[in-house]
């Protein structure tokens, strides 16, 4: 039991820096996922057929490929091509593009969740198109989309650990735990604290999402 606390106090800086890297990876990837995901969702709801199909191909490809394979392609594959890609760009880029497929799906369903009748009704009541979007469509779409986006952030925290063990080897929480483990063979204690680090990020997020789901979701 004393060893448990000893490991934490001795290696606290490493654990903290690992946790901070994980948080930053998730934050950067989420920004990429939101930008790309919004773009893909826009492609899928606009009327031109072949553009819709491009969005569909993107979603089906990136959500069915393992993240590890994506990381190998974007790092080792692109390096072999002669492009000197940065570790952070490859790592966050892969995780971001991977999650973008799910973001696009969530946003698309959010837009469709607002019935077309509501838009027609609001237009016929004399709202302008901008007002309709701002006052009728977006508030409802936002409510539908918040819980799935929260879910995707939790999934991203878990997926970000893959970056640390792949070739890219950013020094995230799991990687730091392995580095400490290589110097001090106290695997149980070290992995216990790494688990606490991950759970600190994911468990509160889980409860937050559950709360938002109850609070926000419009029951139809």
């Amino acid at each position, binding site marked *: 039991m004393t060893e448990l606390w000893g490991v934490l106090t001795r290696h606290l800086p490493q654990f903290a820096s690992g946790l901070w890297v994980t948080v930053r990876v998730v934050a950067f990837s989420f920004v990429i996922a939101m930008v790309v995901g919004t773009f893909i969702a826009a492609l899928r709801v606009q009327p031109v057929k072949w553009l819709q199909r491009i969005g569909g191909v993107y979603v089906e490809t990136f959500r069915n490929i393992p993240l590890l*394979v994506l990381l190998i392609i974007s790092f080792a594959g692109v390096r072999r091509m002669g492009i000197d890609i940065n570790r952070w760009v490859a790592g966050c880029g892969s995780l971001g593009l991977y999650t973008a497929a799910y973001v696009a*799906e969530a946003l698309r369903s959010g837009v*469709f969740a607002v019935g077309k009748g509501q838009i027609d009704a609001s237009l016929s009541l004399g709202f302008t198109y901008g007002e309709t979007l701002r006052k009728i469509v977006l508030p409802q779409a936002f409510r539908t989309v918040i819980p799935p986006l929260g879910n995707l952030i939790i999934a991203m925290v878990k997926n970000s650990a893959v970056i640390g063990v792949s070739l890219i080897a950013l020094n995230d929480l799991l990687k730091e735990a392995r580095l400490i483990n290589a110097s001090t063979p106290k695997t149980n204690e070290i992995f216990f604290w790494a688990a606490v680090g991950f759970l600190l990020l994911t468990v509160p997020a889980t409860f937050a999402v559950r709360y938002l789901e109850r609070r926000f979701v419009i029951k139809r």
Partner: protein
Amino acid sequence: MSYLFDPENWKWVTHGNNLRFIFEHFLNNLMLAVLAMVFSLIFGLGLALLRLSKNKPISKIAGAWIDVWRNLPLIFILLYLFLNLPDSIKRTYVDAIPNFFPEVMHESFFLAAIMGLTLYNSAVIAEIMRAGIQSLERGQGEAAAALGLPYWKSMRLIILPQGLRRMVPATVSQLITLTKDTSLVSIISIQEVVNGGQIIVNTAGSPFVDPGGPKAPVLHVFIVVGAMFVVFNLALSRLSRRLEIRERTRTGVTTERITGLEDQVALQADVA
């Protein structure tokens, strides 16, 4: 772009046994996914029943167990078991496994892989089952009790057949995640498709193993590997969408979303 589409870089696909080698390794992934899913369903059902137990402490403990394991990264669990599974257990496993079982299963780390995948996925499946069972109208359980059925009989005859039916689409969609996740066991040195791809990259066209053969660039090899996953999972996601729509039209209910799982998000979005 010219690098990507240069036919020289694709020659390895038709050369010798390269493609077959990768595909055979991919079958190991599928086997691992199916095995882990079978174990997860068994343990998941147990966990879900404990979670729904009337006994408060038992239900709380099962809930904490489920929440811990499904909120940890799978690769974290796999690495921990890889580094710290006691030798005695590993040796017992290697001795116990019958000879006619596939070659990958004779590695002692295969046990760590199966245990890790099962720990994570049984927690997820338990949560899916709980959502399925709780989506049933209260009246079902109450009617069974009013008819005088004891707890186990009402579970077996009334609750589970209906509740578990509702979880089938979510389970198929979890199988997609699981299939993708089997690629992670390459990190604990099990022969599966990512490892197979790396072997092809290292050996194709090398003067010692395959003299005069075409080189296999890592980009192209892993595009092929990724394509195998995409084809297989695309079929699965179509299936889960079909099942979800059928279930919704049949029962008219939307089962509760399971937090923190990307493919469940996609399933909900697909059908919406």
